[in-house]
């Protein structure tokens, strides 16, 4: 689907109850430096970016190391489409840096 805009992104990310059930199946989390390398972290960091938060190196690592493999989505009690959120965040980052990227 076409990447979500800020408000849709915030709405989706806002569904997160922070239960962490998604984390157990995430391939990147066990090898990452922190919770940002797992789906629970990524959902919150996409919301952080959508609110205009700083795209720090750690935040970027979180967003760009997602495999979009969607294992997490099957475990999410709130039914959040996490790969879609991540792509929306990437798209947002591209839009912000449009002139320099394309």
């Amino acid at each position, binding site marked *: 689907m076409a990447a979500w805009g800020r408000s849709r992104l915030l709405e989706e990310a806002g569904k997160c109850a922070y239960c962490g059930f998604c984390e157990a199946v995430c391939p990147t989390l066990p090898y990452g430096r922190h919770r940002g390398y797992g789906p629970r972290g990524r959902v919150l960091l996409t919301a952080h970016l959508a609110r205009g938060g700083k795209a720090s190196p750690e935040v970027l690592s979180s967003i760009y190391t997602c495999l979009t493999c*969607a294992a997490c989505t099957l475990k999410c009690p709130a039914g959040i489409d996490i790969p879609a959120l991540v792509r929306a965040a990437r798209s*947002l980052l591209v839009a912000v840096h449009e002139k320099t990227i394309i």
Partner: protein
Amino acid sequence: MDVKLILSLLAENVERTGYPVPVDVERIYSWAKPLNLPRGGRAVLYTGALYQLAPYINSLVRHLESLEGRRAGGLALRLAKTLGKIIDLGKVVAKADPGEIKAVEEVLRSIARLLSAAGVEYGYLYEDDMYSGVILYDMGLDEAFARHAKMVAETLEKSGASLIITVDPHTTHVLRSVFPEYVDGFGLEVKNYLEILSENIDSLKPRRGEAGYRVVIHDPCFYARHEGIVEEPRQLLRFAGLEVEEPPRSGKMTYCCGGPVEAVSPSLSRRIAETRLRELQGVGGRIVTMCPICYVNLRRVGGKVEDIALHLSRRLL
């Protein structure tokens, strides 16, 4: 934003050449030459070039890996000065493993022959067999993707086909589930070759008298979770007389090979691939992949893996 470097590299390459890494265009369709497939038709085989590109992507990843160092999770290309080296992609392309190139071309020929054996009438696109643009979509390069997708869609529509046959999970997903969102009026039917073989299984005949062997199946995320292709490969492998074993994480709950982050973080990708490979090896049996990205990524960490099309063609052709 160091990741910008990779993104701009990919975007520039796709926009300039149509492919994420530079590749001789003839190499994309030369695999089909020995088969004398007709051009176009009601149904056309569209590879999306992902199998053909996989060895070159792998070569690029190996190069990035050497630059990145081995720290898990670090984003590749911390330093701007490395960009210059990467742009020298000619060297990267030249280093692609010839064995791997031969292998992926054989996979494509096997797929084509299997479709014919199953009585499917189809043609090929040859030089119009374009890259789908999936990497642009994955990386959130929405506008670049939309432009590229429009071009691909126009080319496919121009071919006059009404059914597009895809051969890998990423191209299948992007064409079937993503194109309709990005390309106005995109209405071509998209089917994966495993689905088509499964529908026409009665037309296929297993070779008699040959002993079967054990295979361990590695489901690609995009088949299993995004496109619902789980049963078809199992049905086909069993039909071919093979004993299908499941790893601990399989089907809808399959575990990613790590491939999608290979360019952004080769070391992270490597560790995930190693984990998955150990799991697959632990089951015992020949490891079956169905995706060129899984294939090269599991191979990069020393996996002996083989594409499903090769297993099927040995037993069904």
